[in-house]
């Protein structure tokens, strides 16, 4: 097991190096705009642009530029500076990480609890009215775009612009450490939006998987042994049916940590997704590079965690 984890970690590092190389090629070799001109701003003279090119090291051979880039990244975790604010990209990302983590992990809890709950109940009463209603509802939620759903919730429930003023609206996010209660209430609507689509998918997934598992011989045996239905379903059924959920959960969390831009924008939550989006809008390449690298890191780490979780959940899985 340890050897497996070490090997996966090494693969993860290699993958990150490949991603960083691709990002370097994308933004240094084939940039959509000249980085020196972007850094210089509007109406600049040739002299200033040339000086900036030297300052950014863009006059050096590409291989040297890549070496410096990797050296700074590995030795100092230096992702460069924003073309506009001159702020270090590393600190911009780290400052925004708590907001994104709060949003995604909280959302994940909501979608897991609601999605699994609804899915399990539907699986136990297939083709019942409850099953049809919940699966129909799931279809609606899957089809609802996050941005639209966010706006609707704000216009209905936000304390400032809503019709039924219940929850704090956009731009109300505060850090967990500064005010835990405000942190919690400000994230209720965003969590619902993040969770909506995923909960629906998870409900459908677990329902299908559990119906299949509950038809297996070993479940019949468990019932024949006289185990309670609760124990049969949760201990034997759900534990087997949950493997596909774990796989997709790891990926979903990894992806969302790097790209929850829509929800962050609608609710004005200063997270990594919005940082990335704003940087793309302004061609602020160092930030785009940094956030994409972070997103790749999240996905790789999430994948490794998923693989480890497999071994725990399903003893049949063995790693060599």
């Amino acid at each position: 097991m340890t050897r497996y984890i070490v090997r996966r970690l090494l693969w993860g590092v290699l993958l990150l190096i490949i991603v960083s190389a691709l990002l370097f090629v994308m933004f240094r070799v084939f940039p959509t705009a000249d980085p020196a001109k972007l850094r210089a701003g509007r109406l600049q003279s040739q002299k200033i642009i040339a000086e900036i090119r030297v300052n950014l090291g863009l006059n050096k051979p590409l291989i040297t530029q890549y070496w410096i880039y990797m050296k700074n990244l590995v030795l100092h975790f230096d992702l460069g500076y924003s073309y506009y604010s001159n702020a270090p990209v590393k600190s911009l990302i780290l400052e925004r990480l708590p907001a994104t983590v709060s949003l995604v992990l909280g959302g994940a809890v909501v979608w897991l609890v609601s999605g699994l709950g609804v899915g399990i109940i539907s699986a136990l009463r297939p083709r019942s009215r409850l099953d049809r209603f919940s699966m129909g509802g799931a279809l609606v939620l899957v089809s609802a775009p996050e941005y639209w759903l966010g706006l609707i919730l704000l216009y209905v429930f936000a304390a400032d612009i809503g019709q039924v003023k219940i929850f704090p609206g956009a731009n109300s996010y505060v850090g967990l450490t500064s005010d835990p209660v405000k942190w919690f209430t400000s994230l209720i609507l965003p969590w619902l939006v993040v969770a909506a689509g995923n909960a629906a998918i998870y409900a459908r997934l677990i329902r299908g998987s559990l119906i299949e598992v509950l038809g297996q011989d070993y479940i019949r045996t468990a019932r024949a042994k006289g185990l309670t239905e609760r124990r049969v379903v949760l201990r034997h059924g759900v534990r087997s049916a949950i493997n596909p959920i774990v796989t997709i959960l790891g990926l979903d969390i990894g992806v969302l940590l790097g790209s929850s831009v829509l929800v962050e924008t609608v609710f004005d939550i200063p997270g990594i997704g919005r940082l990335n989006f704003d940087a793309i809008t302004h061609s602020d390449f160092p930030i785009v590079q940094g956030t994409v690298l972070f997103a790749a890191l999240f996905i790789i780490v999430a994948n490794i965690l998923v693989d480890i979780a497999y071994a725990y959940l399903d003893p049949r899985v063995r790693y060599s």
Partner: protein
Amino acid sequence: MRSLRTITLAALAGVLTLGVAACGSSSSSKSANAGVSAPEGVQTPATESLTGGKKGGTLNVVNHEDFEHIDPGQSYFAIDYQAVYATNRPLYSYKPNSFKEPVPDMAEGPPQVSSDAKTITIHIRHGVHFGPPVNREVTSADVAYALDRGANPNVANPYFEAYFKSLEGFSKANGGPIAGIKTPDKYTIVLKLTEPKAAIAAAALVLPVSAAVPEEYAKKYDAKKPSEYGNFQVATGPYMWKADASGKVLGVGYQPGKSATFVRNPNWSASTDFRPGYLDQINLSIGGDPTVIGRQVLEGSHIVQNDTPAQSIVKLAFEKFRKQLLIAPGSGNRYVALNNSHGPFTNVNLRKAVWAALDREAMDKARGGSLVTIPATHYIYPEVPGFEQAGGVTGPKFDYNEHPQGDPAVAAKYMKLAGYPSGKYTGGKTIQVVGSTGNPASVDAEIVNQTLKNMGFKTKFNLVDQATMYSKFCGVVTEEIDVCPNVGWLADFGDGQAALQVPFDGKYIITNGTNSNWPQSNHPKINKAMEVAENVVGASARAVAWAKIDKELVEEAVAPVWDWDKQPAIESKDVAGVADVWNEAGWDYGFTSLK
């Protein structure tokens, strides 16, 4: 050109005409400036009161866009200026609703220009102090250092060369002292020029590069590549960025992409400033959905939005919250850059044909219609000196700029004159059209592209993001782009030269830098006229001289101009917002108060 910006010096007559036109009465009053005025019930910078505000309170500002550069030596963007002019005092500034002339700010009186127009002498005020952590009186040496920074590549000021290159020693300037900037005493600064260009250099002293910077404090930050002074800046205005004891702003009063906080500058003295400085604090939040932000402002309390509200919000404000809506004219022009130096549009009659065919009214409608646009007929836009002299709204009359909805018959006439008797382009060459993504820019680009196709052109049509459009295509001479439908210009200050020279003078076609003469206009007669007009002294004489050039540009049809922007701004009902007409309706923190 500043993005979303204009500083203007319109004559008082312009303001009076607004009043007449706002009554919407006679056809004679309509003819001169119809469309420039705001609809009834909507505020304009011309009608807002600058005095009598309530002191105290915290204003909340919402922006969906972030600042670009907060260093006064580098900032060149509407939102940046709102912060820069509240925290820094350049030598001269404009009052929010005053178009006529700049007023002395850090300077004590108007600039004294020598008879040969080669020397400018300015006396600065006594008793103005830097905010913490510098806490000492501002001297002329601080203004000199600020101007020296203009040539420092680490600061990368965008306009210094354009307006101050005639300073003695400019060619060797690299951030150190510039030979042509002298400080004979603590309160006097003298600018020595190699050419008689005092008029434009003095006019450009309203730009934030002339705001004092303490050398002993800033030098270590300016030595960094790029300079970090912006993130440690010191205030001279009524407000300062919230900072820690060392003066650090980044991470304290400014969280990029998240928030900014301005507090009172404890060393600011009202007796030295024309700004009342009513507010105690300004909290700025960055980001969010524009429609949500707009509703928060209109339905909330003590909030203003700084950047452009969403079209749907402007409409909502106009219909239901009209008193909370402000419309400022004079917010720049937009034109279609047809390549005058390469390809088929070197033919003047083809350019005229495109101008005639273009449905400029449809393009304006895509931007929000008459509430926020005026179909343009020439390049100097409302509020810039020379606009009236160039013919006002109707402009210099030519058959190809006469019909805003386009005139196929006139277009066909010029196609024939261009050598295409069928009225359709048969040159065979595929022309490259590069526009900007995002609504409404992409819609406007589509209209231009379709117009060209209707005229028989084969087009290769690309939409890219705006930064890429300028830095990779339209601003790169060697790319030889034939048509750029989404370009526009905002004068840096109220002078015809600032509105016309960089975008249309042949000597500003920059092959290796950032070219902003997008049509690559290079017509010897016009270039020569600009050279002469540069040296004209006196506001009214300059207005006439540059209006004449404006007419010549239209006569050459260098670039079909289709819009003069009007800028909307919104505020909560309990905010007495004062917007800067010279800053594209940006709320002025120095004058705004709470009700």
